[in-house]
Each structure stands twice: as C-alpha cells, then as structure tokens.
C-alpha cells in the first residue's frame, strides 16, 4: 500500500470528517432530511464545515498521489473515488443548506419605509393636469389651488418615514450572520468545483424574492398589446406608479442585491458575483423596462405629451444609477435597452408636438361658438402651451428643429406661413410655440367665417386673440419665449378686430344720426324735412333695438375688455345722439305722436349700452326703464 504519508497521518481526521458528512447525507437518512445543520446550532455548522475542509484537503492529497503513481494503484483510484463521493454528498448537503438559509432570509423588501410618496408630487409641473377652465376668472385661481394642494401633500408626508430615493442607497437584505454562513458555504462549493450549482440556487431563490418585491411595488406584467389597449388615463396612473417603483428598484433593490452578491462571494472574485447578480436581476430588470418601452412606442396623441415627458425625465435621472448598478459586460443589454427607451421617449415627445400642431391646424369644428366667446380650442391650446412652458427645461433640450411651416410663396391656402427673419435668435422650442399660436389664429380665422353676422365674427376674433394675449402675459416663461415683439403683434390684432367690429355694427346706426339729407333747401324756418326726420328716428330706433337685442346676448368674457368696448361705443354713440336730439327734437315734438319717434333719452341709451356683451338676453322694455 503506497498511500502517501500525510494521508496516513490524517486518516483519523479524514475518517471522522467522513463520518460527519455521511451522517448528514439527506439521501440516506430521514433525520438528516428533516433537520438543517445551519439552523441547529453554530457548533454543528462549524463542525460540518471543518469536515468539508478536511475532505477537500484529502482530495487534493489523493489527486497528487494518484497522478504521481500514474493511475497504477487501484486503491488510490478507489480512494479518490470514495473521496469524490463524499465530496458530492457534502456538496449536495451544502447546496440544500445554502438554499435554506437563503429562503429563510429572503422576503420582499419592506417598501413602506423605503420611499417617500411625496417624492412624486414635488412642486414641479409633473402633475399639472391639463384642464379646461370653465370661466376665465377661475383660470388663475384653479391653478393656484392645485399648487396649494400639492404643497400641502408634500408637507404632510414629510413624517418620520421620509426617506429619499434620489440616489443609490443599499440596504441590508440579510443579517450579517446569514451572510457569513452563506459566504462560508459558497467558498467550499466553489473550491470543490460546484460553482454552477451555487449560482443556480442563489439565482432562483433571490429571483423569487425580487418577484415578491416587484409585486409589492405594484409592478405589473403588462404586454405591449395591453398597454396599447388601455385608456390613457389609466396609463397615466400606471406611469406615475412605475416612476416611483423604478427609482426604488434601481437605487435600492438592485443596488442592494448587487451588494449582497459582493458580500457573499467576496472571497472568490468579481466575475462570480457579477454572474450571480445578473442571474438574479436580469429578468426582473427587463420586465421593469418593458413597461416603459411599451409606453414609448404607443400611438402619439397630444394629451400624452406631459406624462411622456415625466417618464423621460425620470429615466434620464435614473440613467447614471442604471449605469452604476449594471456596470459589467454581461449587463450591456440592460444599459442599452434603457438608453433606447430614453431615445424613443424623446422621439415620441417630438412627434407628439408635431402631431399637436397639425391637429390644431386641422381642428375641424364648424359650429360657431354662441355669443362669439372664447372657443374651447383656444382654451385647450393656450393651456397646453402654458404647460409646455412649464416643461421648458426638458423640452428645450429635446426640441431641436424648427416647425415645418407653410412657405410664403407656396400659395397653399391651407397652411399659414411664418416669417422667420424677425424671429432670429429664438430657440426652436420658442419657434414652435409661436407657430402654434399662428396656427391657432389661422384656424380661428377660418371658424370666424361661419358667423353670418360680420360683427360677431370680429368680436369672436377679438375675444380669442385677447385671451391668447392674456395667457401669454400670465406666464413669465411663456412670455419670455414668445417675446414682446410678437405679443405686440397679437395685441394689435385684437384691437384691430375691435375696430372692425365697431365699424361693422355702428357705422350704419350712426348714419341715421347724420345731418345731411335732413335740411330742405329754401326757406329758413322749416329747414328740416319732417318726414325724413321721422324716418331717421324710426330707423335709428329699430336699428338700435335690433343691435341691442342681438348684442346683449353676445359675450366678452374679459371684464376689462367688455368695459373698454362699451365705453368706446358710448363715446361715439352718446354724443352723436345727444347732438341729434338737441338739434331736431323740437321738430318732432311739435308734430303728432312724438313718442313714436323719440323713444329713448340719452340716459336710456347709456343704460342700454351696459347690456351689451353680457351674454344673456334682455327684455325689450327699454321704454319702461326710461319712464
């Protein structure tokens, strides 16, 4: 027998080690199956590990001796075989122990204390909802209210559980004792060549844990088809939830898993802990990003812009951390996917903006807004671009090309053109915003032609362009981008519309109060044609009544503008009437039934003008009021 010396010396150590290993062979005894070494007590565990070490030592000794004997010694081969069997039994056992320790300490992440629910409701515009105002006066106050609510929400959740997910923060997923045990087992498994088994076990248990965490975070498994089918409103809340969850996943969950791998496989090199980490995390990471990807390829429509920008910004923010956590070669695909999604989201944002511009141009509703008031399209568009100006920071980076406008010389009647010369030095985003306003006006001009009454058409334009001006003035970012030059142009336009209105309505009314045609040539005393005069009064009364009746139902929502226009009307109407009355009333009063012709006093007219543009009909009893 040519057993090497050292084996002889250690044969007792080897034998007792072998006994320990065999005692815990779970394929051989019920008892061994039912109990777990590492749960029993520390001493048991330490003994077992020592036994494994002893066997491993023997293995290397036997290998040396076998190779040096060139396989001639059958006993040596037998011994090696026996040792191998013992190793296998030990490894199988250790695998079970490894799994058991992992399972015992693998639960879903405690998410409640982890993320600050208010981190999604910061004062940035990510939750400004696109709403149509009902009345002009509520415009600013509702915006203000929304902001108030959000600030309150921020403060109330700033409790003791506040923690930020704004940067990587690893947590301890397992108690350090467990990690030590796992480390010890892993070392033995790997040095015996059982690395693969080790990775398999580790991966599958931790994957389950991550799955549970995912469920807790509300991360769903939605197919792309599902996402396309869902209503956008439902998707909006999913996006919000995803953004919160993704931050936790990347910065806490995945980062902590990585740390755990590093800890457990500390002694055996980075390739192994990389492999374990990817084994665990690759699938879940892909699942996480699949949702964002599905959103990034969904059909483009204007209302999606702001949530898509939110998603873009969140992912942009996360990208450095994604790159830090997934820094190995084997995780290339994940980094690449994240970057791809980001770029698709940017494309989507650009596409939606274009789409929006076309939609505004094409908006086909023909039913004229009653009373010539502000068209819903105007409100929608101005709200929309106010929101865009809130997202200025992101969009300035994303929007890099000028809007595609009509050409001055194309003669294309269906698209307005925009002179770029005077808009030198403006960012592409600003050009887009101006273009949107140009296109909006173009559309409104078309809509105004559906009013049968030309005066109403002018009033409509005046109201709407004025509203545009007010909205621009009301937002500093918007105003800064649109620029005061263009603002002046817009102001000029609505003033022009006001003038056109006045001309359209009042020229003919005031024509009744002109001097010419009333005087009859010839004698001095009866220089006025009574019949003509009576006609004038009758016509004036009828016209004024008609205008009054009609235009009381017209609406100028803006109080100041309403006042201004009424004053402007009065300034022309009242003096004219007063002077007309002054000069000619005596002629009427000297005739029969003067009350048929002089129906109204100056005061009556002044009062009547106050009815204009209120938006509701007045009774025809002007006369009664004057009595």
């Amino acid at each position, binding site marked *: 027998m040519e057993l090497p010396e050292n084996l002889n010396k250690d044969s007792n150590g080897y034998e007792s080690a072998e006994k320990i290993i065999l005692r815990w062979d779970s394929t051989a005894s019920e008892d061994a199956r039912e109990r777990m070494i590492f749960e029993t007590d520390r001493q048991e565990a330490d003994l077992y590990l020592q036994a494994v070490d002893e066997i491993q030592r023997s293995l290397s000794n036997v290998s040396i001796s076998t190779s040096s004997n060139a396989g001639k010694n059958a006993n040596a081969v037998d011994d090696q*075989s026996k040792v191998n069997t013992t190793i296998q039994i030990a490894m199988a056992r250790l695998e079970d122990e490894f799994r058991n320790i992992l399972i015992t300490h693998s639960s879903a992440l405690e998410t409640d204390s982890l993320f600050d629910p208010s981190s999604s409701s910061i004062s940035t515009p990510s939750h400004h909802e696109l709403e149509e105002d009902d009345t002009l006066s509520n415009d600013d106050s509702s915006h203000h209210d929304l902001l108030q609510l959000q600030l309150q929400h921020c403060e109330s959740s700033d409790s003791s559980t506040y923690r930020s997910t704004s940067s990587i923060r690893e947590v301890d997923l397992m108690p350090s004792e467990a990690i030590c045990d796992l480390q010890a087992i892993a070392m033995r498994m790997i040095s015996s060549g059982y690395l693969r088994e080790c990775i398999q076990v580790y991966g599958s248990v931790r994957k389950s844990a991550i799955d549970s965490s995912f469920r807790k975070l509300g991360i769903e498994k939605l197919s792309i088809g599902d996402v396309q089918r869902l209503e956008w409103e439902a998707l909006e809340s999913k996006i919000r939830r995803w953004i919160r969850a993704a931050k936790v996943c990347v910065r806490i969950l995945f980062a902590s898993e990585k740390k755990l791998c590093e800890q457990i496989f500390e002694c055996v090199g980075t390739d192994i802990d990389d492999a374990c980490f990817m084994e665990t995390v690759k699938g879940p990471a892909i699942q996480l990003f699949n949702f964002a990807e599905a959103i990034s*390829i969904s059909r*483009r429509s204007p209302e999606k812009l702001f949530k898509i920008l939110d998603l873009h910004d969140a992912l942009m923010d996360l990208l450095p951390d994604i790159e830090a956590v997934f820094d190995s070669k084997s995780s290339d695909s994940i980094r690449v996917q994240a970057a791809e999604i980001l770029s698709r989201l940017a494309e989507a944002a650009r596409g939606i903006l274009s789409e929006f511009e076309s939609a505004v141009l094409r908006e086909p509703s023909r039913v004229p807004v009653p009373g010539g008031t502000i068209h819903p399209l105007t409100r929608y568009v101005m709200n929309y671009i106010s929101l865009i100006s809130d997202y200025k920071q992101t969009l300035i980076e994303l929007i890099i090309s000028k809007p595609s406008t009509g050409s001055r010389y194309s003669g294309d009647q269906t698209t307005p053109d925009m002179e770029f010369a005077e808009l030198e030095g403006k960012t592409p985003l600003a050009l887009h915003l101006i273009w949107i306003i140009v296109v909006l006006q173009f559309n409104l001009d078309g809509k105004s032609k559906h009013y049968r009454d030309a005066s109403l058409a002018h009033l409509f334009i005046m109201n709407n362009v004025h509203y545009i001006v007010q909205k621009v003035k009301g937002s500093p970012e918007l105003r800064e981008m649109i620029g005061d030059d263009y603002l002046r142009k817009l102001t000029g336009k609505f003033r022009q519309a006001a003038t056109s209105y006045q001309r359209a309505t009042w020229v003919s009314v005031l024509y009744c109060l002109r001097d010419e045609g009333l005087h009859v040539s010839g004698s001095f005393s009866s220089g006025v044609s009574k019949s003509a005069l009576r006609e004038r009064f009758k016509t004036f009364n009828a016209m004024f009544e008609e205008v009054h009746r009609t235009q009381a139902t017209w609406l100028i929502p803006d109080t100041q503008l309403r006042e201004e226009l009424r004053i402007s009307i009065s300034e022309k109407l009242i003096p004219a009437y007063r002077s007309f009355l002054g000069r000619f009333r005596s002629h009427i009063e000297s005739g029969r039934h003067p009350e048929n012709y002089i129906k109204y006093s100056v005061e009556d007219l002044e009062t009547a003008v106050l009815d204009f543009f209120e938006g509701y009909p007045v009774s025809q009893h002007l006369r009664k009021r004057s009595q």
Partner: protein
Amino acid sequence: MPATDYQASFLGRISIRRNQVIAMDGNHEQELQDLELFSKHVSERFAELLSSPDDIPFDALLSISWLRKLLDFFLCCEAEFKGILMMGNDPSQISKPPLDRLIPEFLDRSVKALDVCNAVTNGLESVRHYQKLAEIVVSALEQKPIGDGQSRRAKKALTSLMSAMNVDDKECSAAKATERSWSFSRRGVSSKDRVPEHFRSVSNQVAKNWSAAKQIQAMTNNLVPPRGAEGSGLASPVYTMSVIMVFVMWALVAAIPCQERNGLSAIHFPAPKQLNWAQSIIGLHEKIGEEWKKKEKKGTAGLLDEMQKMEKLGNILMDFTDSFQFHGDITDQKAEEAAARAAELAETCRRMEEGLLPLQMQIREVFHRIVKTRTELLNALDQVGKSSPPLL
C-alpha cells in the same frame, strides 16, 4: 366608312395608346419591378431555409443557427418591404381602400409580434437555464474515470434538467399562472413537500393570461390574399409581409418555450399554394407542424434542435447514471459511450453558449425594426389626417 371617319378613329386610337404609354412611365415600371423582385427574394430565401439539410447538424431545422438565418431573412424581407411601401409616390394611398383597412390590420399584427418577441426572449432565458444545468452534467461526467460521486452529481443535475424541460412545458400548456409562492417560514415541512427548487425555471416575465398560441392565431385574423384588382398595388406586399411575419413568430414559438402554446399546430396558414413565393413557407409550416404534433403528446419544452438533442442525450445519460447507481460496475464500453454522449452534450452546450446571446440580440433587432416601421406608418397615417382622434 368615309375616309375622314376612319382617319379620325385611327388617330384617336393612337392618341389613346400614347396616353397609356405615358401613364406607364418610369415610376410605375419601377414599382412593378420592385414588387416582382420582392416576391422573388422571398421565394428564394425560404426555399433555402426549407432545403437546409438535416444531416448537417449545424443548420438543422429549428436549430439556433437556422433560427438566426430565419431572422436574418426576415430582416432582409422587411427592409425590402419598407422600401416598397415608403417609396410610393402618393402618400395618401395608404388612406384609401384597400390599404385603409389593410394597414391598420398590419399594424395590429405588428404589435402582437412585438409581444411574441418579448415572450420568446423570456423563453430564451429558460433555454439558458437548461444550458447551465447541462453544463453541470458535462462537468461531472468529464472527469475520468467516472466515479460514483460524479455520477450522482450528474444524476442530480440531469433530474433537474429533465424536470425543468418538462415542467416548463406543462406549465406552459396548462395555462396556469406560473407564479410560485415561496414559503419563507421556518422549516418544519416534511420531506415530500420539499420540491427541489431548481425544477422551477426562470421567473416568468410574461403577463398572466397571455397565450402565445392565441396571439399568433389572432395574428392570422383577416389575413387573406388580396383578390383581383386589389392584388396590383401595395396590398400584395402587405399581405406577403404579413404572412412572413406570422410564420417567423410561429416558428420561434414552436422552437422556444413560451407561455401557453396549446393548439399551435392547429394554426393554419392563409397562404394559397398557387402563390409562388409561399410554397416554401407552406412547406416549412407543414414540416414543423408535424414535428410539433409528434412532440405535443410527449410534452417537451419546444422544438429547438439543441434542446431536442439535450433531451435525447439527457435520457441516455440518465439511464447511465441510474445503472451506475444501482449496478455499481460499469463496463468500459458503457463508460466510453457515456463519455461520448457527454461530449456531444458539451458540444450542444457550446453551441448554445455561442448562439443564444446573438439570437437574443437578433430578436431585439427584429423588435426594433417592427417598431420603426410601425412608427413610420403611423406618422404617415397622421399626415393624411386619418388616424388621430379629434383634438377636442
């Protein structure tokens, strides 16, 4: 007939013909040529796939390299198709019949294909898992002479491997939720409850009720060859591309474990035999369909050639390790055979190691391409003002 009349009608006929000639100008000619070339290329490529010799194992039907070829051909066809579609003179054509119906259907199919791509990618993770288990077997049986320890190790891994390949498919076909809830409570469970966890393969990233077979079945909805006059314009290539897309997805799902594939072979291809370019595709569909029917009864994880080999070798090696365990002694001949099988298994693993990642990347490329074309088509539809919902 008076001479003048005759002359007039003769001249009339000439001028009409001249008009016709003018209408058949360069553009139209080019378009027809492109369409013909497209069909020709499709025909050639799929003929090549059909004739892949089975005896050259590298390119066997539904092997990794065969699938990569298939995807490569898909990308080529797709590129040609897009060229034809986008180079059309009249962009508003896509909003007129029959394209106004066919394009939205095509887009719907595209979305379904994207989900299939994702499911297949997920399925490839399972295949990778089998590969890893098989590598344990190989590593155990590599050592010579094979001892009891290695045999037991190999057997353990083989048991996991075979169960995984079977469980996966049963889980796939049973359409149950594939969530497995772990009990993280203290041990106290009796031995029979303790199912070795590596029977459970990779975690499933696919939505619960999603069915690969149903998805592909839905993709064949409304897929009918264009009739008569319809066949001359763009309706033809749209139909061709649709058939190709459906076939490729179907083949991928047949090869790679995906959730819920019951009834896969029952999916019929709406491609009449008269169409030249469709001959090979139909041939492939029949061939693969037959293989699927054979396997469906036994219940395997999928038709991927490497997986089939793995299963075959796994069974042989399982027998070997069993006899080792129970009979103790192993003849040299048996040991040599086992070693040879193990070497074959190693070769299969190597092919998987080399090919799976590139295959995954190719599927991703296919994904991107489908998305791109879909986006461009949607943009084109938007331009014409047909597809977007009203602003207000």
